[in-house]
């Protein structure tokens, strides 16, 4: 039997948008709970250096998120981490959020579920496919690895892999150009230990006796196919909206994002959304915290008028 908890506001997602919403909500005297499926901080935890958050010229993403978390802890926000939300009932004046350990009944909900990394889509799967250079890079010291992706994450993580002692990197990007900052591209390629290929995708992985031995690549312009001998694969293909909880109960864009109003309203009274899950042009920590602010203030206004 799950514990039933009644509260004013439930925020689903504990990244910068969710934590900022909690900060504003609790200061507005709303009894607030943050439910996070992993640990608070979201994708920022995986960002090695944040250099565009006002007041911090340069800070590790995890450190910035720990500071944000400390601030909401200080204010008395209830945060449940490693918490699996199993179902939502968003219609009606009182909303219901059921998790693996409790049932929350609340006056308003803010959806701040953000995005999740895209997986490598190949017919053959391998256990040597990773998404985090810090976590898994050292296991491949002295060896050749494949990096998939041509954005800032792929280049930054590749630099970290080289620093971890990786002997050689083959980096592939499916589009005709890389999207990482020019300075980072120069830094990586000037190492002399990286081969880069644009317009190139991973067709399949080659696994022998349960161990990854290589990857089959294809250039989409020439049609040329070739194999590279690699011991590991690091995937940085970007992200997709984390909408599985509400994709059948909320109207979403074709890409799966929430079309929120300027006040972060979703179209269902008492349900707001904030951060990367919203359809928008720019996804930055600063835009997430702005969304979180607006969502919390809108939720407070809604609760004061509807209850």
């Amino acid at each position, binding site marked *: 039997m799950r514990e039933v908890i009644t509260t004013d506001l439930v925020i689903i997602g504990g990244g910068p948008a969710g934590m900022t919403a909690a900060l504003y909500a609790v200061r507005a005297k709303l009894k607030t709970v943050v439910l996070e499926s992993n*640990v608070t901080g979201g994708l920022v*935890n995986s960002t090695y250096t944040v250099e565009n958050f006002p007041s911090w010229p340069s800070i590790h993403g995890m450190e910035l998120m720990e500071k944000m978390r400390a601030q909401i802890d200080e204010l008395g926000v209830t945060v449940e981490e490693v918490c699996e939300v199993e179902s939502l009932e968003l219609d009606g004046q009182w909303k219901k959020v059921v998790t693996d350990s409790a049932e929350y009944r609340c006056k308003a909900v803010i959806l701040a579920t953000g995005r999740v990394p895209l997986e490598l889509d190949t017919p053959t799967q391998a256990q040597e496919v990773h998404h985090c250079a810090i*976590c898994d890079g050292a296991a491949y010291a002295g060896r050749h690895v494949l990096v998939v992706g041509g954005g800032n994450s792929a280049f930054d993580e590749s630099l970290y892999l080289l620093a971890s002692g990786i002997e050689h990197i083959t980096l592939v990007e499916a589009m005709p150009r890389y999207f990482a900052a020019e300075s980072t591209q120069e830094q990586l390629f000037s190492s002399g230990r990286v081969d880069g290929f644009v317009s190139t995708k991973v067709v399949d992985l080659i696994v022998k006796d349960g161990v990854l031995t290589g990857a089959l690549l294809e250039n989409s312009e020439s049609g040329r196919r070739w194999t590279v001998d690699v011991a590991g694969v690091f995937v940085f293909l970007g992200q997709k909206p984390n909408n599985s909880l509400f994709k059948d109960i909320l109207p979403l864009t074709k890409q799966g994002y929430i079309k929120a109003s300027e006040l972060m309203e979703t179209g269902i009274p008492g349900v707001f959304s904030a951060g990367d899950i919203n359809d928008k042009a720019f996804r930055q920590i600063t835009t997430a915290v702005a969304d979180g602010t607006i969502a919390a203030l809108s939720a407070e206004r809604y609760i004061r008028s509807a209850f």
Partner: protein
Amino acid sequence: MFEELSDATFDGRIAEVKAGVCIFYKQLCPHCKNMEKVLEKFSRLQPEVTLLSVDIEQNPVSAGVCGAERAPTIIVIRDGKVAGRKAGLMNPREMAQFFDSCR
């Protein structure tokens, strides 16, 4: 909640543990932070399990002996011996199954 071990204390402490879990982590590893929360939740359900931790970069000998190349790596300890090892992230349910499978 976690008792921090070093290369100097690892072998002696493991030998004393009847039922335990040790996480090998790195300071800047986001999945490690996540896995620590999973273990805290797991421990609330199984309070008799001792939680231990080892910083891989500060303690290469223990990490090497336990094959902890990746972070996080989890080892299960039963009656003073390493009974199982698994690298990568697990949810609390998978962690409980892994712990039970290490007999």
